[in-house]
């Protein structure tokens, strides 16, 4: 199987994110980049398939800046065979990213049997690319997948929907599958894996190479700013068991009469 895994590089969840001076995007200087956490599930799924079907190859695709290629290196250190980088600025919209991924995959000359993605990237949280990519590539797709079974061309996927319910899908490869937490436990990149990764091939393309133009941009962002700070709240001491009843009754009163939320 030709398996492609789409990965994005995003700021670490613990990183402080601030708007840049003209509000056109965020400050990129002090950011610690990681592979989008949901993409780790996709990489792991690909590697599990590869382990079961030795003739499979796993190619990771990323659209983003070359400043730091952390996400691709991590994926290859985990065990992916090769990677494709489509060089672009970090604030591209979902439409352009999906189109660039499609172009990057086509450039590889391989016909995908399976395209795995994280269900969403935790930077812009759009949750669009897997579905858009499936439309552009005319492939079936399932999002938010928490269960994956494969028998030959047949896929049986479990998708998480509201209230923790599960939809069970059946479809055939080739397909686009967007992975959610709970699907598997991503492995660590091993130290020998890290040493090996540097010798694995990395193909690099520009946006123009893969057919993405300025006219493809659909969503325009501006005026990045910090959310308004909340005024300080009220704090009540109830470590002493005798104080609990009084404090609780006061807070319930405030919720009712001051905040008017119950």
């Amino acid at each position, binding site marked *: 199987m030709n398996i492609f895994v789409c990965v994005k590089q995003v700021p670490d969840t613990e990183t402080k994110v601030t708007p840049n001076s003209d509000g056109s995007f965020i400050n990129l200087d002090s950011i610690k980049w990681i592979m989008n956490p949901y993409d780790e599930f996709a990489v792991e799924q690909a590697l599990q398939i590869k382990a079961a079907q030795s003739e499979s190859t796993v190619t990771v695709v990323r659209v983003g800046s070359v400043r730091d290629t952390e996400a691709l290196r991590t994926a290859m250190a985990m065990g992916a065979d090769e990677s494709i980088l489509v060089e672009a600025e970090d604030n591209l919209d979902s439409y352009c990213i999906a189109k660039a991924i499609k172009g990057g995959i086509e450039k590889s000359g391989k016909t995908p049997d399976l395209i795995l993605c994280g269900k969403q990237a935790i930077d812009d949280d759009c949750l669009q690319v897997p579905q858009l990519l499936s439309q552009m590539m005319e492939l079936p797709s399932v999002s938010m997948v928490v269960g994956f079974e494969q028998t030959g061309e047949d896929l049986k996927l479990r998708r998480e929907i509201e209230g923790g319910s599960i939809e069970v899908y059946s479809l055939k490869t080739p397909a686009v599958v967007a992975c959610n937490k709970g699907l598997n436990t991503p492995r660590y*990149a091993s*130290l*020998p894996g*890290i040493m090996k*990764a*540097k010798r694995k091939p990395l193909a690099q393309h520009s946006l123009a190479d893969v057919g993405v133009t300025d006219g493809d941009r659909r969503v325009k962002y501006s005026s990045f700013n910090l959310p308004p700070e909340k005024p300080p709240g009220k704090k009540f001491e109830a470590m002493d068991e005798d104080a609990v009843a009084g404090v609780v009754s006061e807070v319930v009163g405030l919720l009712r009469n001051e905040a008017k939320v119950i």
Partner: protein
Amino acid sequence: MLNFEYTSEQKEIKELSLKFARNEMHPKAQEYDDNKKFPGDVLAKAWELGLMNTSIPTEYGGSGFTASDSVLITECLAYGCMGMTTSMMANDLALLPIIIGGSDEQKKRWLTPFTNEFKFASFCLTEPGNGSDAAGLKTTIKDNGDHYVVTGNKMWITNAGHADLFVVYGTIDPALKHKGISCIVIDASSEGIEIGKAEDKMGHRCSDTRSLNFNGVKVPKENMLGAPGEGWMIAMKTLDHSRPLVASCALGGAVRALECASQYAKERVQFGVPIAKHQAIQTIIADMGIKVEASRLLVSKAAWLLDQGLPNTKVASMAKAFAADSCMQITTDAVQVYGGYGYSKEYPVEKLMRDAKLIQIYEGTSQIQRLVISREIFKEY
């Protein structure tokens, strides 16, 4: 030309090691310490990821790390837990004499299995009556025709209860002093080995530390590393390699203490502001930071010299002494920043302080390091 930047692989190595420290070691460090529980499960995972036995050369199945890589890994792991790291480092310490003094056949026989399988080895130098005065050891290695007979007692042996191999120092003739000291590898399943009970220690409580008695243990001749009498040279070269590692262990513990203290100082409010806003706390944190940075520079230089094939005895001892003493100071100060909470087991810093103490003692006490350093300085000037 000075260059303080990590290579891209080193950045990734650091990233992985830190991730492992945070996800696998931090959640278990306190519990394993409380219960004196051997971290076999954590270490097995570390081995899977190639975080153990980093000194083994590529020819024998190792990953081909430089000393600079190894100290970086050790720093990160010690940031996770100094006790668990001691257990991992003990393997390197035991395998280094084989790497330094072993023949190609011996290296294949003893090193390669450690890359294929998760297992332990112990370095056996210290004896009940000989700690700092290592050359005065009493264990004898007697030539008995087609084999050697090893007799003697060893003390404070890390991983002794789990080891497959013991790398043992003894003397072929006490009258020869240094020149009689020899290093021999003993299979743990050999007859006549008595393993003592696990020591109840102040810190590094999850690591397994025991006494060992060799009661006339028969050892094949081909288990001698180098020629009889070359053991002291092997031991000294081993220490040149292991002291930067031990120093980086102290450094990792110090980094953890600095992180904890700094974060706590920003959260803890007294007199209406976080204590990080008080000058008294700021100077403590700054001093901790200075010592961490200076320790790292010494550790890096000691490892760099080794990688260049240059003599590093002096700097390795400086790194070990300075990093260990700094770690003690930094962890003590971290407890101070936490105040009463720091003294409680509910917070991680009291363990760091207990763990720090051992690093001033093992692998050559801080006093022995100064003896080595002064000797080297007197040679220079």
